[in-house]
């Protein structure tokens, strides 16, 4: 991973688009993160998926920029009838989701099969 960019993998499952960014979402990558989320929502909508799952397993951590990017994505996806869910946060992300109370506004899954 180069400084200031995120790598992504994408998978589709029954009714679900699963995306996995790799890296850290901070001030340098937050815009890229938000733009890519917007594209993924559009693709999920055109494929008729009802849910967009973000696999956080390879996300080191996320500052408020990334979290607020999730909020903007959630608004956009709600317009297309898509729900965003989060999966497999590492221990740091789990703490950040709890401190920011984002674990109260997003459903968080411990494993992919549970989604």
């Amino acid at each position, binding site marked *: 991973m180069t400084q200031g960019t995120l790598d992504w993998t994408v998978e589709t499952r029954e009714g679900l688009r699963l995306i996995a960014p790799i890296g850290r979402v901070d001030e340098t990558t937050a815009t890229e993160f938000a733009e890519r989320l917007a594209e993924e929502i559009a693709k999920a909508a055109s494929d008729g998926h009802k849910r967009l799952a973000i696999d956080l397993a390879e996300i080191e951590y996320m500052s408020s*920029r990334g979290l607020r990017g999730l909020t903007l994505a959630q608004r956009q996806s709600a317009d297309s009838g898509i729900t965003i869910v989060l999966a497999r946060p590492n221990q740091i992300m789990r703490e*950040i989701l709890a401190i920011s*109370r984002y674990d109260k506004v997003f459903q968080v899954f411990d494993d992919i099969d549970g989604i």
Partner: protein
Amino acid sequence: MKVRFWGTRGSLPVAQKAAAIRDKIATALVAADGRRFADLDEARTFADDELEFAVGGTYGGATSCVEIEAGDEFILCDLGSGAREFGLDAMARCARGHARVYHLFMSHFHWDHIMGFPFFVPVFDPETKIVIHSGHADAELALRRQQEEISFPVAFDWLRAQISFVTLETGKPYAIGAVTVELIEQNHSHKSYGYRFTDAAGKSVVYSTDSEHKVDRMDQEAAFVAFFGDCDLVICDTMYSLADSASMKEDWGHSSNVVAIDLCHQAQAKRLALFHHEPTYSDADIQRMHQESIRYEELTREAAPLAVICAYDGLTVEV
């Protein structure tokens, strides 16, 4: 430079109820575990050193009022209910020879930031000079209206001090008293302003309350990062959780601990004081928010550490 917090609560003054005090005493007795104390001082030392702040103390409940001690004249941010006690203390200092000159800096004129003015005793002293600075052109209207007969028995025109109003503009430094002052416009109903005070030694304090960093306007944050740049102490509105400020309480005009820490990290500020506490929060709630803020700072730190303190009524910080 010293910063003294006279009021740190947001929106509405609050007071501890009997049951809350009883629970603090009960928790302290359990923590003491049968220990004996020779005198009150020994018991006080135990309370200071061995009890959590939320048990042995309280964050207080007066609304926004922060004194910046620099030079011979008083500098004060906002006139929340904490201004009553500040006014009494300031009069006592004047009796001991302190200059009777006050430079007030107003973030905005919502109730919780002006309600202390009618009880601010220096306004009755004809020897006192009070200059009220703000970014708002309608400052005088707000303070006069608060003292109209329907709301308060003492009219503004009956006040004896020499009171004047000065409207400041953003983007330029002003030399006022012993400090240089700059201001920044903030997102809040009817606008609010943040202030940066720099003393002769180059130490600086930012007072930024009732400031919403909007989720869909993150592009506006660069201006705040610059304003907070290398600051020794940044006092920030951290009333809500990030989730609340971005959802249910969006557009309520306030911000979160998490965004304040991110901005201070980017600005390479040295210390952050959490401020404008949610009135529904108990001492334990505020203490938890403080601990979580310290943890978030650790988790997201990329450069020098940012010290995160939690303002409480009565706290003095040496800058």
